[in-house]
């Protein structure tokens, strides 16, 4: 049986290899931190890390992650860098309903892990695949810029 790593667990890949990774995470494995919203790769609510790169799990057939490592917000929140992102989001008031937040955190991480300092324009582009219906984005940009200040 083919497997992939989901957070700390080795998980068996379902028979239907076109089953969405999102359904395996939420329905089969009961990990509901990853959200479902648009179902077409526009909103970023379902964003997860596959081998440490961001992907929209609603568009990933589970066959595509065989042998790979998938990380959801449940595991990502244990990381040191998550704590910094959380602190910045809290400080900037970047969370209202919270539905987009796991995806926003993932997209923020993808930008931060480059280790470079980015302009506001870069921040906006990095978060361009994540929709938020509450904040108007400005507080989220502010949070990411607070994190940027820490970059030497």
């Amino acid at each position, binding site marked *: 049986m083919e497997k992939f790593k989901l957070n700390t667990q080795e998980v068996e890949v379902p028979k239907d290899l076109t089953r969405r990774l999102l359904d395996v995470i*939420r329905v089969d494995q009961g990990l509901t931190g990853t959200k479902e919203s648009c179902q077409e790769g526009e909103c970023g609510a379902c964003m997860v890390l596959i081998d440490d790169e961001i992907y*929209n799990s609603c568009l990933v*057939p589970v066959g595509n992650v*065989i042998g790979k490592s998938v990380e959801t917000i449940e595991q990502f929140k244990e990381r040191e860098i998550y704590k910094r992102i959380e602190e910045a989001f809290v400080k900037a008031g970047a969370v209202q309903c919270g539905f987009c937040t796991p995806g926003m955190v993932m*997209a923020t991480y993808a930008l931060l892990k480059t280790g470079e300092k980015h302009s506001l324009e870069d921040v*906006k582009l990095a978060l*361009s*695949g994540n929709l938020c219906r509450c904040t108007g984005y400005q507080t989220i940009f502010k949070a990411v810029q607070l994190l940027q200040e820490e970059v030497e």
Partner: protein
Amino acid sequence: MFETIMPSTLDEALEYMHKKTYSPLAGGTDLMIRARNWQGSTRHFKGDVLLISHLDSLKRIWVDEEAYHMGALVTQAQAASSKVLPNYFKAVVSQMATPAIRNAATLGGNIVNAASVADLLPPLYLADARLVLRSLNETREISIQEFIVKKYTTSRRPDELLTEIILPKIKCDTFVYEKMGQRRASILSKVSFLAVRTQTDVRVAIGALNDTVIRSRAMEHKIAKGVPFDEIIQGYEALYESHDDKRSTKSYKETVATNLLKNWLEVNHFEKGID
């Protein structure tokens, strides 16, 4: 219920495709949406599916004297961050979709999909790109113009897989790429305009306006010869065949295309000619 096959090699994939018609599924950013269904339920694929995203032999980018070669499974992110691909190509690919989509979406997927708004097509038309199609018993190379028959229709046979994109090296001193859409990122183009110039030559491709990319070598020669702008613009406008769609109106798209062309002609002072 459809069948899903995950071949372990390219040759094995071609053997399956020789026997039966499959939909090759790579990054999933288009086909998974078309097969959408309720949460937790089986996707609505109309035919059998061949998962190919793991075929590493199709993920290479390499360069020889004449051309840049890209495997069909090179992702948009991989192309955008490539150190060897030309800047005009990277400018196009780095403005497609969003960071997470670019990590999954492949170059081959955008081309084979053959949408009129496919952003990769203008640079391929611009450089007279060629595509390699493989089947079990044959490897053939055809031009992008021969490949794209019309909107959403290609000349790929059901037993063939697009394996490689060959982008000939063209001279490019400066280039302009303008992608017009409802927002700056994560958007399908209403019109795109790509132009490169050298000391003696120009190339122009207008995307998303017609069902296929507008490219005219005859008009490019006229630009280089310093033919008056009015005549150039009329020449291009005669090639417009757009229509109202859900993203925009015919009138808007055609006006924008002409403005982008006019602006580029003026900024480059082509009235003097460069030929």
